[in-house]
């Protein structure tokens, strides 16, 4: 939960150390506003919306290309209330793996739409991907934070996301309480998500034969989540946050476009079936973030996350942001390193052997449920510029990230499939330009 402790009035005692601190705070603040303007501030300043916008370009090698403009508007009112609106537009195109296994022979797939012109054939040795993948998504959200005592605040929010085959509404509410001179913040929040799926061509019956194309009309899923967080100021330059959360999703949790190859003992693909995931999933996670300001130039944000769910997925995430503020405080660079590792879901399988019956009755070849580790390397450069109109400053930034997944757990495969890259992994780049004013 992201809450910023504020300063209450102190009580007098032991003045010396406080004087030093107060002087340092004054001079520190002065250093920040190096060329502080002589003119009195425009009293309408706070009434303005601050805008944080970005345009992201995401490219997965040989597959998906996405353009994603994002805008975030925030306004703080004089009485401490704040409003926040955000909007995202996502435009994806390219090809998406359909879950089938790479094979020595060419494979032909019908399009989910059922249209003959969208049927596609995958060459031998190639990972089957649906080349007609195209999607646009519009998401808008809002959040309202209301301090109702000096140390308590309530926050409510809602988000709506729309795609041609997916519609989602999420609402959340949280309450936060400050104590210990606002050095400690406890928060509790709940969230509720309602999704409705209307896949092209219908929602397949889980585990049914691909060739029979047994499909139903739209499906739904919904989720509830709860989160408890503690934010603690540890020292003058160290802030820590610890969250635990649990969420539970129920309903149609399958990816309607994912199929799994059925192969015989010789390694020949004899057919496909639609994936079949359980109809509920409970996830628990623990998250710990530390922000430390080492000196005037350098600060770090380190976050660690452990997540586990009842599908058998466990994951560890460690992310480090390093912010290096350059000499005159109008520029900074921010290198990022993220390491992620997950175990496979119990029912993950890259293929089904026609001789065996899946023991759980569930199966998915969706690589996102497989065992892999991923690394992200990122670098951001930001430049502060004079503000527009009454604003003090604006910030222009460029950011690039390289994301790579490597699969580390391999299932014994029939000899005939040896030599094929059944776990191609993923390489993606993200380039983003941002403008904040």
């Amino acid at each position, binding site marked *: 939960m992201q809450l910023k402790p504020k300063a209450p009035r102190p009580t007098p005692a032991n003045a010396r150390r406080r004087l030093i601190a107060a002087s340092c705070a004054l001079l520190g603040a002065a250093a920040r506003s190096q060329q502080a303007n002589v003119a009195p501030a425009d009293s309408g300043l706070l009434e303005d919306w601050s805008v944080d916008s970005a345009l992201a370009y995401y490219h997965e090698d040989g597959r998906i290309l996405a353009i994603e403009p994002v805008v975030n508007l925030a306004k703080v009112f004089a009485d401490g209330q704040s409003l926040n609106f955000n909007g995202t537009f996502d435009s994806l195109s390219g090809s998406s793996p359909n879950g089938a296994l790479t094979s020595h022979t060419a494979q032909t797939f019908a399009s989910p739409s059922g249209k003959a012109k969208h049927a596609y054939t995958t060459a031998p040795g190639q990972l089957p991907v649906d080349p007609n993948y195209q999607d646009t998504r519009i*998401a808008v959200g809002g959040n309202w934070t209301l301090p109702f005592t000096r140390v308590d605040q309530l926050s409510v929010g809602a988000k709506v996301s729309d795609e041609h085959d997916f519609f989602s509404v999420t609402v959340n509410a949280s309450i936060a309480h400050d104590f210990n001179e606002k050095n400690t913040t406890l928060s509790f929040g709940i969230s509720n998500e309602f999704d409705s799926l209307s896949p092209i061509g219908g929602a397949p019956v889980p585990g049914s034969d691909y060739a029979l194309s047994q499909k139903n009309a739209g499906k739904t899923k919904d989720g509830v989540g709860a989160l408890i967080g503690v934010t603690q100021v540890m020292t003058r330059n160290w802030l820590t946050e610890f*969250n635990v959360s649990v969420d539970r999703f129920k309903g149609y949790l399958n990816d309607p476009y994912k199929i799994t190859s059925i192969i015989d003992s010789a390694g020949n693909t004899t057919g496909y079936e639609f994936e079949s995931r359980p109809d509920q999933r409970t*996830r628990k*996670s623990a998250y710990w973030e530390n922000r430390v300001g080492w000196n005037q130039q350098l600060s770090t944000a380190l976050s660690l*996350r452990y997540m586990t769910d009842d599908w058998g*997925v466990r994951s560890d995430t460690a992310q480090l942001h390093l912010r290096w503020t350059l000499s005159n405080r109008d520029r900074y660079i921010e290198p990022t390193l993220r390491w992620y590792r*997950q175990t496979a879901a119990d029912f993950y399988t890259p293929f089904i052997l026609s001789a065996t019956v899946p023991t759980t009755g569930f199966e998915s070849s969706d690589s996102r449920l497989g065992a892999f580790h991923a690394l992200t390397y990122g670098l951001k450069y930001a430049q502060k510029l004079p503000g527009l109109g009454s604003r003090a400053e604006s910030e222009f930034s460029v950011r690039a990230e390289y994301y790579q997944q490597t699969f580390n757990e391999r299932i014994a495969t029939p000899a005939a499939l040896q030599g094929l890259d059944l776990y191609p992994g993923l390489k993606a780049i993200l380039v983003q330009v941002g403008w904040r004013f």
Partner: protein
Amino acid sequence: MKSKHLSFLFLVCSAAIASGCTSLGVKPWQRDVLAREEMQLGADPVDAAIDDHMYFSKEASSGGRSFAGGGCGCN
């Protein structure tokens, strides 16, 4: 410098364990460092949203910092 910081961290950690939250923290006028933009939790909401969306659509985990779920048909 580095080892000094580390031993400092260790000291503060032990202090935290020994005496609980109430002895931690700073006085209101010692918030000069904590007031810096980069010291705020969720300092870059847009960057975080774009990253979260990417990871949500490529991995089996989401949430932690805030609620899980993505409101996206991509996973």
